[in-house]
């Protein structure tokens, strides 16, 4: 240990610099992401939930990234017979016809 230390004498600061640069480049991009996704998820679901009923566990949110663009995909599975109502007339409930919702609808934001 002390011999190893002796051999490296005069050189540990550049290692510190390199480690920090790599770590911080990673942390700077990572730190803003979890917050953003959580906020987006909550707000998107709140908006959609006002109009369509769905099961929260059947929602998938994915972020994919290539060189020039990022895509945020929100998959919400709406069961057959899912209901919606007009926000302006909360008592006039409408039922989705199977034609509209027999498949999994996908929003790409």
């Amino acid at each position, binding site marked *: 240990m002390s011999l190893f230390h002796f051999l490296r*004498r*005069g*050189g*540990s*600061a*550049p290692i*510190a*610099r390199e*480690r*920090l*640069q790599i*770590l*911080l480049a990673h*942390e*700077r991009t990572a*730190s803003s992401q979890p917050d953003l996704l959580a906020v987006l998820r909550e707000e998107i679901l709140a908006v959609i939930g006002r109009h369509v009923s769905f099961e929260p566990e059947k929602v998938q949110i994915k972020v994919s990234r290539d060189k020039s663009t990022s895509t945020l995909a929100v998959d919400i599975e709406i069961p057959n017979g899912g209901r919606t109502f007009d926000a302006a007339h909360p008592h006039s409930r409408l039922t989705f016809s199977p034609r509209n919702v027999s498949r999994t609808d996908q929003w790409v934001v």
Partner: protein
Amino acid sequence: MLVVTSGKGGVGKTTSTAALGAALAHGGQKVVVIDFDIGLRNLDLVMGAERRVVFDLINVINGVAKLSQALLRDRRLENLYLLAASQTRDKDALTEEGVANVVEELRPKFDWVICDSPAGIERGATLAMRHADVAIIVTNPEVSSVRDSDRIIGLLDSKTAKAERGECVEKKILITRYHSPRTARGEMLPIDDVLEILSCPLLGIIPESQEVMRASNVGSPVTLNNALSAPARAYFDAARRLKGEHIPMYVPSESRGFLNALFGRRAA
């Protein structure tokens, strides 16, 4: 309105708050230093006012005391004031609204309102930086301190009142515990590397020195206890830079003779 912050503990926030506050007050400015480290207050101790604290920041926020009752005037400098933290365990007592009220009341009365942030990135730290116009990020030339400073810079750019208004808190790095012989030997991160990694301008370089502990032992800011010592001179220069003066950056190893040799030998 200035916040002294760092993320990491033990890097010298409280020492720097006391030293810069005293240096600014010594130069004729009216200064108040506020301890935001609720539950673990120490600024009063470093300033030598621990036995005079009757009311604290939380008392003012709760309306138990008026601001004028809680402000302690320094015994050495008549335009230096202290607002102590409380010893209560209840950190929730520090409310956003309460802090805003205290800050707004102090701002017009003082040239400098200096907040000593607690370590970490929790409530106390975010509230201390909340209303800052300028932030001093105290950093040791060492990996964990630099990493935590980077986190704090991220918070300053997103969670402060200025950031939310789309403005920018002015950020300045204060390097403390700098040891030039070790940097020369490649054992300690050079200043330029730290500044490049954090991409912020430098406010000053405070050399590692026994004077810092000697001053805190007797309860006096290092700038008052021994104004000619190396760290005190570095703090005085930093304080003048804060006021907008252009002082050439002082690298401790170059311009100090026997004191430097003394420090170098002791720690080698």
